[in-house]
Each structure stands twice: as C-alpha cells, then as structure tokens.
C-alpha cells in the first residue's frame, strides 16, 4: 500500500493532462510553476472549471507526498474510503469533457 497514494496521484495527473490536451492548453512539464510559466497545479487553481476538482487533486498530492517523504502509512481503509474516491471524483469530472 506504500505507493498507492502516489499511483492515484499520478493517475489524476494523467486525467488532468488529458483535459489540457482536449481544450488546447499546453501540458506543463512541471507540477509547480516557474517564472512566466504556470505549472499544472497553478492551472487547476486558476481555471474556473478545474478549480472544482482542486480539493480532490490536493488530497492526493498531499497524501502521496506524506507517504513518500514523511513515511505516512496508508491503510486499505484509507485507500478504499478516502483516496480512491478522490480519484473517482476527478475521473467523473474529466471523462465527459474529454470524450465528447
């Protein structure tokens, strides 16, 4: 389970990249911004539509970094009841927008 949050986070990254591709936003190379170039997280923050999934994205972001860098243990209950639903919310938001 150690890497489960990280896997979910990067799955979320791919959903968001798919949205960028669909609406014509160049896919950022970085999670965060750099001078003059917003990162993926910045676009999610600033885009009125995408900001609706910001909390779900941030939960996965923080939990994956807690697991990777702070050695936070993730239980199966955490995964089933909290983490996976965050990705599901992102998926449900993105899929209709990229498949029409």
């Amino acid at each position, binding site marked *: 389970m150690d890497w489960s949050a990280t896997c979910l986070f990067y799955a979320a990254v791919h959903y968001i990249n798919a949205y960028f591709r669909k609406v014509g936003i160049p896919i950022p190379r970085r999670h*965060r*911004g*750099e*001078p003059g*170039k*917003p*990162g993926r997280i*910045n676009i999610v*923050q*600033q885009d009125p539509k995408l*900001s609706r999934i*910001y*909390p779900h994205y*941030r*939960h996965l972001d*923080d939990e994956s*970094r*807690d697991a990777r860098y*702070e050695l*936070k243990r993730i239980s199966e209950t955490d995964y089933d009841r*909290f983490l996976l639903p965050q990705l599901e919310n992102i998926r449900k938001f993105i899929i209709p927008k990229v498949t029409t």
Partner: protein
Amino acid sequence: MLSSRRWKPVAFETQPGPVLYTFLLTPKENLGMTSIGVSSESLHVLPWNSENSEWVYPEQQVARVLVELFKEIPQVKSICARFGHDEITIWTLLASYDREAREKVYEKELEVCKILRIYDFDFRATSADLVSPEELALSGSREIFRRN
C-alpha cells in the same frame, strides 16, 4: 478585499538586521515575521513611525495574507513559509491528521491564489505530528504563525 487593504506599519516593529517582526494578534495567537529573502541592501529599515515607512516587504504582505486566511481554520496549528528565488513554499500544519480540516485549507489556498495571483506557490498541508516547524526550519522555512 485583502489585496486592496493598505497595511499599516504600526502593526510591527522593525529593528536593525537580522530583522525579526513580532506582534501579538490575540493572547493565544502569535505571529512572527522575518526578513527572509530580503537582500542586505534592503536591511536598512526605517522606523515604523517615520513619514517614509508606509510600506512593507513583499514577503511580509504575502505572509500577512496567508496568516489572515489560514488562521481562520481552528485546526491550523502552525504556518511555515520559505521564500525562494522562484517559488514560495507554504506549509500549513494541522493539529492532527484531519482530512476535513485539510479540505478547508484547500479552499483557503484557492482564495490566496485569487488574491495574490502568484504562480509559484507550492502549498503543502499536513499534520504537525508528521512534520514539525523545527524540522522545516532546517530546510530554510520560517514559522510565520503558531497557535498556542
């Protein structure tokens, strides 16, 4: 709007460097600000009651906005910031690993972005049990708010 508020220098004291700005918000809340990221040329600070002292460092203004917003969440125990050359890292440390409180932090992060419109924020929200302000200080962060 916080962005349009004119910050008054009466709220903090300035001293010759290394500069430490400290003032009490309430008996239970202590807000400390430092001159992180300010060049040595900028360390000549005018007295707060000088006619020419109606300004604050950009880092201070950012820190004030952050603290004003995040401290509204009762579970926020500490806020740490690191002002780098091309990014600002903000750690919001909660009293426990509280996912509902963390969701409130995320709402505040969006507010911060709307107010400050800075691209290079790196927000992190976690528990103070998992990451301590003292540990963050080792990597260059400064605690800008602590709830006692």
